Each structure stands twice: as structure tokens, then as C-alpha cells.
């Protein structure tokens, strides 16, 4: 299932449970409300029958008083009024009991008729002034009715008490139920939310952290990544693509590394093996010149000199290649803190003769302590200073200045000269092997800058040139600081990303 659907399902489930809970709870509240209404109706009923009972009681007392007065003219209006009051209250009570299945409405109706009969009878008796008969009626028949009414009220009371108890119980139960339902809903939705959340989070986070680990591994240059993500979701797709990319890159990298190693092996072997026949050629051409120079014609002597020059040049070339390939394959590259001005001093000393011959001046700022191989750094500085002297302008004594600035955790060196300069079209080529601006004119085999680049890169730095024809050149290269933690600065040297591939 996709993440989107999973999330939708999770939120949907929680929403559904909350909705269910809310529905049940509101149904319970509705019940409670209904019961409350019933309670009110119940009270109305009780009041109604109590009023009826009070009426009958009043009729009994009032008529009793009136019958003692023995005044028919006072009796009838009072009797009429009492009768009407009772009738009204019975009507009212009947309204409350109309739709109940109790025998109360019948009883009330019968009561109205019975009381009516009594009123009629007493009215007749008062008309003939038989107050004894009236009083006897009150004592016997009306009392009997009164006791009947009392019975009814008791009946209603019992009925209503039962109903009220039932309603109260129902309300209590409803409240309890609502509480339980609400708590259950909350707990269930919480539990489901937590469970779904955990599940969803884990199902997303677990592949993500795998992917992250793989990306770090990848970034560290280890293309041999394995991802175990079974999920068939968006993350699964990403992981698969990532794994495929990693595998392909790993393949390319392995192929590249192998071919590079082959090439370096080849270069070393070739240059090493080429030296043997070359030594033979140069030995015998030297012998030929020393022993048989005089027997050779002028033309022969000229040819021989070409041969000697070519073999010498060949020797230089092979030495260059060998040196270069040694740099490539040198596994014993050992870093140490080196004072770069000492290195420069050694170089100046090495080049003393040329410097004097060309009246070159070499100056430098305060130079830092760097981390690297002394031998290689000497070679690097010597190549750059040598080149600066070599490509001097005619009639202008070369001036070379070396400076260094800190740049992004490295030392950035600058070797500036006042030489002939380099056309910008060659800036990209000059760091390649066997590249010389003017072949043969200045001697050398065109390996100097290639080797220089190689050295800088092996130290984790970069090399570049800013120059224009007739305006001198400025070679920039960076080297690691010695002051910083050795591991941190040199970590790049072992990484595939900075490893020279050509």
C-alpha cells in the first residue's frame, strides 16, 4: 500500500471511530433528554391528580360547612363553582393522562360523573331543605368517592414513583454509558492513532534511514550498497532506483579503476622496459662517436649527433614517464609537516647555476608550513620555478615571486613570474603529459606541469594558471595546512573522489 493511502487510512480510521463514538454518545444524550422530559411529564401528572384530590377534599369540607348553614341559596352557587373547578382540573389531568395506557383517564371520567351525580342529588335535596339527607350524602357517598380519589392518587403516585425511578435509573445508566462510550472512544481512537502512527512512521522511517545510510555510504565512495527495502511504496521505488544507480556506478567505477591500474602498470612497465634498449642505443652511439668519429663522413657525424640527441631526449622522456608513473603508483606516500620556505631554499640551491646564468631573482613572502611529501614538494616548486626561468623573456632577467594565502582550510600558493606568458587557449592543455608550448626550444620533454599537477592533486589540492602572452604567468596551487589536524586535512587524499583517475 502506498504511503498516501496508508496515511489516509490511518486518519480515516481515527476519524471513523471518533465519529462512531460521538454518534453513540449523542444518542445516549438524546435518551437522557427524553427521560428528563418524561420526568417533567411525570411531575405534571402528579400535580394534576393532586389538584383533583385537593378539589374533592375542598368539595367535601366546603359542602359540609354549607350544609350546616342550611341555606339553599348559599349552597347552589358554591356547589356550582366547586363543581366547575373540579371539572376543569379533571380536564387538565385528562390531558396529561390521555396517551398513557393507564386506567387513570377512565377513573377520572368516572370521578367526574360520580361527583356530578352527587352534586345533582344534593342540589335536589337542598331544594326541599332536607339537610339531613345532604349531610348523610356527604358522609357516605362523597366520602366514598373521596377515598376512591385517594386510592387513585396513591395508584398514580406509585405508578409515577416507579416511572420516575425508572427514568432516573435510565438517566443514570445513560450517563454511565455515555461516559464509558466516550472513554472507550477516546482510548480506542488513541490506541489506533498511536498504533497506526507508529506503523506508518516505522514503515516510512525505516526505509528512509536505510536510504540515508546508503546515501552516506555512497557519499563516502562506497558504491557497493545493498538496500533491503521490501516496501512497494514510494520509498520502495526511490530505494530501488537508488540501488540500481549505486550498482551501475559501482560497475563503472570498478571498470575505470581496473583500466587505470592497467594503464599505470603499462606506463611503468613500458618506460622501465624501454630504458634497456634505449641504454643500448645510447651506449653504442656514444661508443661510435668516441671511437669512430674520425672514420665517419661529415654527414655520418651529423647523423650520429642526431642519434645521440634523440636517445638523450628519449631517455629524458622515459625518465619523465617513469617519474610520473612512480608518482601514480607510489603507495608509500608519507605526509609530514614541511616548511615550504625550506623547500624553496633547496630548489633555489638546485637551480643555482641557472639562476646565476640568467641573473634571475627569486623572492617570496613568509611561507607556511604545509603537510606533504618533502621530495615531491621540492619537485613541484622546482618544476614551477624552473619553468618560470625557462620561459623568460629575452633580454629581461626573470623575476619570480612566491606567496601563500589561506584559502578554505588550505594554503593557496602563487608562483608569479615576468616571463613570456601563456596564451589562454593553452591554459587547459599545459597540465597534460608531453605538452610543451614551443617544442624543443627550451629543452625538457613537457612532463613538468603534468607531474606538478599530479603532485598537487595527490596532496588533495588543485592547480591552475592565470596568464596572458607577454604579461607573465601566475600559477596557483593549494596544499594542506600542517597546523590543522593531519587526519582532517588529509582525509581527502584517500577518498575516491579526489583520487586521480588520469
Amino acid at each position: 500500500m502506498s504511503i498516501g493511502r496508508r496515511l489516509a487510512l490511518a486518519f480515516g480510521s481515527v476519524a471513523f471511530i471518533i465519529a462512531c463514538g460521538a454518534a453513540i454518545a449523542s444518542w445516549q444524550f438524546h435518551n437522557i433528554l427524553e427521560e428528563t422530559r418524561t420526568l417533567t411529564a411525570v411531575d405534571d401528572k402528579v400535580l394534576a391528580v393532586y389538584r383533583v384530590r385537593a378539589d374533592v377534599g375542598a368539595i367535601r369540607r366546603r359542602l359540609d360547612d354549607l350544609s350546616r348553614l342550611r341555606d339553599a341559596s348559599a349552597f347552589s352557587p358554591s356547589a356550582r363553582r366547586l363543581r366547575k373547578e373540579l371539572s376543569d382540573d379533571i380536564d387538565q389531568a385528562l390531558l396529561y393522562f390521555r396517551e398513557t395506557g393507564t386506567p387513570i383517564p377512565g377513573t377520572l371520567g368516572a370521578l367526574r360523573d360520580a361527583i356530578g351525580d352527587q352534586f345533582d342529588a344534593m342540589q335536589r335535596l337542598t331544594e326541599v331543605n332536607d339537610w339531613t339527607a345532604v349531610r348523610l350524602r356527604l358522609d357516605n357517598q362523597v366520602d366514598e368517592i373521596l377515598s376512591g380519589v385517594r386510592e387513585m392518587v396513591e395508584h398514580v403516585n406509585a405508578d409515577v414513583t416507579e416511572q420516575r425511578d425508572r427514568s432516573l435509573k435510565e438517566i443514570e445508566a445513560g450517563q454511565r454509558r455515555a461516559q464509558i462510550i466516550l472513554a472507550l472512544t477516546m482510548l480506542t481512537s488513541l490506541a489506533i492513532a498511536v498504533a497506526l502512527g507508529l506503523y506508518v512512521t516505522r514503515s516510512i522511517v525505516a526505509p528512509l534511514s536505510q536510504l540515508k545510510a546508503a546515501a552516506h555510504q555512497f557519499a563516502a565512495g562506497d558504491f557497493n550498497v545493498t538496500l533491503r527495502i521490501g516496501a512497494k511504496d514510494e520509498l520502495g521505488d526511490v530505494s530501488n532506483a537508488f540501488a540500481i544507480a549505486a550498482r551501475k556506478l559501482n560497475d563503472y567505477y570498478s571498470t575505470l579503476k581496473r583500466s587505470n591500474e592497467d594503464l599505470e602498470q603499462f606506463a611503468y612497465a613500458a618506460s622501465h622496459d624501454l630504458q634497456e634498449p634505449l641504454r643500448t642505443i645510447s651506449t653504442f652511439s656514444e661508443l661510435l662517436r668516441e671511437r669512430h668519429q674520425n672514420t665517419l663522413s661529415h654527414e655520418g657525424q651529423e647523423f650520429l649527433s642526431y642519434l645521440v640527441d634523440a636517445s638523450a631526449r628519449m631517455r629524458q622522456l622515459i625518465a619523465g614517464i617513469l617519474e610520473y608513473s612512480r608518482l601514480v603508483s607510489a603507495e608509500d606516500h608519507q605526509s609530514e609537516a614541511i616548511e615550504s620556505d625550506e623547500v624553496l631554499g633547496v630548489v633555489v640551491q638546485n637551480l643555482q647555476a641557472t639562476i646565476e646564468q640568467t641573473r634571475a631573482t627569486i623572492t617570496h613572502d613568509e611561507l607556511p608550513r604545509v603537510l606533504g611529501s618533502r621530495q615531491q614538494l621540492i619537485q613541484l616548486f622546482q618544476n614551477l620555478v624552473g619553468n618560470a626561468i625557462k620561459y623568460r623573456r629575452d633580454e629581461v632577467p626573470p623575476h619570480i615571486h612566491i606567496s601563500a594565502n589561506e584559502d578554505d582550510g588550505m594554503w593557496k600558493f602563487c608562483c608569479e613570474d615576468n616571463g613570456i606568458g601563456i596564451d589562454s587557449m593553452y591554459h587547459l592543455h599545459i597540465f597534460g603529459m608531453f605538452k610543451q608550448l614551443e617544442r624543443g626550444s627550451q629543452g625538457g620533454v613537457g612532463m613538468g606541469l603534468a607531474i606538478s599537477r599530479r603532485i598537487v592533486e595527490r596532496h588533495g589540492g588543485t592547480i591552475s594558471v592565470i596568464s596572458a602572452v607577454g604579461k607573465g604567468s601566475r600559477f596557483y596551487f593549494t596544499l594542506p595546512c600542517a597546523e590543522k589536524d593531519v587526519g582532517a586535512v588529509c582525509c581527502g587524499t584517500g577518498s575516491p573522489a579526489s583520487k586521480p583517475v588520469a
Partner: protein
Amino acid sequence: MLMWMAGNAHRLDRRIVDEFTRKTGIPVRFVPVPESASQQLTQELILLEHGSSAVDVFQVDTTWPAIVASYMLDLKDVLAKELSDEQPAVVENATIDGRIIAAPLLMEYGMLYYRSDLLKKYGFSRPPHTWSELETEASRIQRGERLRGRPDFWGYVWQGADYEGLTCNALEWQSSHGGGNPLEQDHAVNVNNPAAIRAFSRAAGWVGTISPPGVVAYIEEDSRNIWQSGRAAFLRSWGYVYPLAKGSAEVSGKFSVAPVPAGPARRASVLGGWYLGISKRTRHRNEAIEFLRYMLSRQVQTERAVNGGFLPPSRSLSRDRAVLHAIPFFASISSEMPDVIIRRPASLAGARYGRVSRAYAHGVHMILTGNVTPAEGASAIQADLVHLTGFADRPQQFGNSAQESR
């Protein structure tokens, strides 16, 4: 569920009905009705005329069979066995056009309650057989009691208010004096005759002499109130008074029951009581029949008689020892009944009975209150009834009891 439109559901009836439900599994519910018979009739007619099937079993008053006959099932065949044991006059009263539309539940008839202690006290060995004896005994006891510090003591109380009860009283007077029945079987109106006038005039003479002046406003309960509270020697009323009086502190053990006194012509006691009928609309015909059979059963009738004092219409129960023990006077009354029972002219008047009875009672009431002379009153009633019924205006000129209907 059977719905029984019963009068005042007596506690006894509830127990009896519960027993029925227990036995048969048929629940019965009482439909409450108004206390007064006339309002009850109105309510029953509303239900019946609207064809409602809400009520299955109806209580039917002695005077209603003609009115409700068309709405009731014929019980002649389904209850043949039970009906064969009933008093013929009672069954006949519910027989309309050959259909027995209701079965008698309890029997009522006019009877005389008397204070046996006072009779003894004033030297009378037996209750009055005739109206004249009643007048004599009543006035002597009244005088005697008043001399003994009971200024409000009266000799005789009865139902003199202008209502159905007065019709019953007056019918007994008229009939016992040989005045016949207001509506005769040959569809003649017979009130304005000398015997009837003599009877009315005698009764009017009681008012204020042996009966309280207020008696003209008395209905059953008023007369019972007076008599049962020890304020009168004689009471004309129905059987329902008996258990009540037996339970009253003032008269318990001091009274007995006799037939209504005879007039010059005969002894006459008006038939009352209640019947049970089944609505034609019932949806529970078989259950209703079973219920009636149960209510008419010897067991239920005995229980009602012994525990409730209700007089059973059954002839065989009039010899039942348990019943006679509870209602000792039942035997003598039952044996005389065929001769003394008179019926209200309900079946003759049919649906107009209510108006007929009101006119008759009203006329008699006018005589009792002295608004008209007995002769004027009788003449007025005669005219009213002729007008109401369309029957022949044929009052008997001379007292002759042979034509009396039963």
C-alpha cells in the same frame, strides 16, 4: 383480550374475573363507565351505534333490551342450558322478537327493609303485608321514636325524586292498587284510572307524614342513608342494600327484608337487575360466550350471592343452602316472585322508554310535591304518554288487576 363494559367494577368481580383469566388464559379488562345508569346507556349506545369493536361484553340494564337489541348477539342457543335455569320473567325481559339478547347476571326487585327491633319494640309481630299496615306501623313507630328523643325520625323512606327510581316506586303503587301498567300489552296507555289515582294520592299523603318532606328529592342512596343511619323504620329499595346494611353499625342485626306491601288488588315488585350481552361486532365471539357461561355458572353466581349479596336469577340457587344462609329472605321472595314481579314498560316502549319513564316519573313527582292533584297528574301523564307512544288512550275505568303484564 375481552373488554367488559361493566358498571362499578366491584372488588368481588375483579377477583372473579381474575379467576376466569387464570382458568382460560383469556384476559378481561374492565371498561370504566359512568355511575348513573342513564349516562352509562348513552355511552354504550355511542359505542354500539358507531360499530366499534372496542368493547366485547356489555352490561345491560333491565330496561335496555329493546334499545340495544339490534346490536347484540342472540344468546338463545349458545347459552340454552344456562338460560333454562333462570327465572322466566327475567329471561322474558331480555327476549326481543324471539331473540334473547342478554343473559341475566343479577336480579333486583323492589323490597321492603324493616327494623325488626323497632317492630318488636312497638308490638308488631310481622312486617306489614299491605300499604295500610305499613302506614299504621310506620306512624306508630315514628311517633314513639320522636317521643323518645328522635325528632328527625321517620316511618318510611323511599325514592321520590323525579327519576327512574320514582317510576319503579310508582309502578308498584299503581299496580298494587289495581291501576294496571302505564303501557298495557295491547298498546294502550293506562294511567288515568281511579285505582292509579288512589295509589298516587296515598303516596302523596306519606310525604311529610310518615315520610320526610325531602323524600321527593331522594334517590336510592338518600333513602338508604336515612334508613341505614337509623333515622327511619321502613325502606323500600333493592337487593343491593342488604349486604351494605348488614355491615352497618346502626342497623346491623336489627333489620329484615319483606316483599313490597300489597295494595287492595295485589302485591307488586318491580324487576330490576343487570344482564350481560355480547356485541355483534365482537372479534372474540367464542371467548365472550365462554366468559358469559362462566359468569352465569353456579359457582360464580353462588360466590356473588354469598360474598356480594347479589341475587342470582337462577331458580335452583334459591334453594342453595349457602345462598340462603347469606340471604335468608331469598327463599320466600323467590317463591313469590312469579306472582309479584312486574316489569317496567321498557320492551313495549322500545327506544322511547327513557322518555316514557321520565314523563311518568315527572307526572307522579308533580303529584307528590303537591303541584297538581292526583287526578290532574294522572290525566297529564296519560296525555303525555299517549303523545309520546302513539298508543291508544284507553285508561281502565275500574280497577282490574287481571290485565297486568309481566
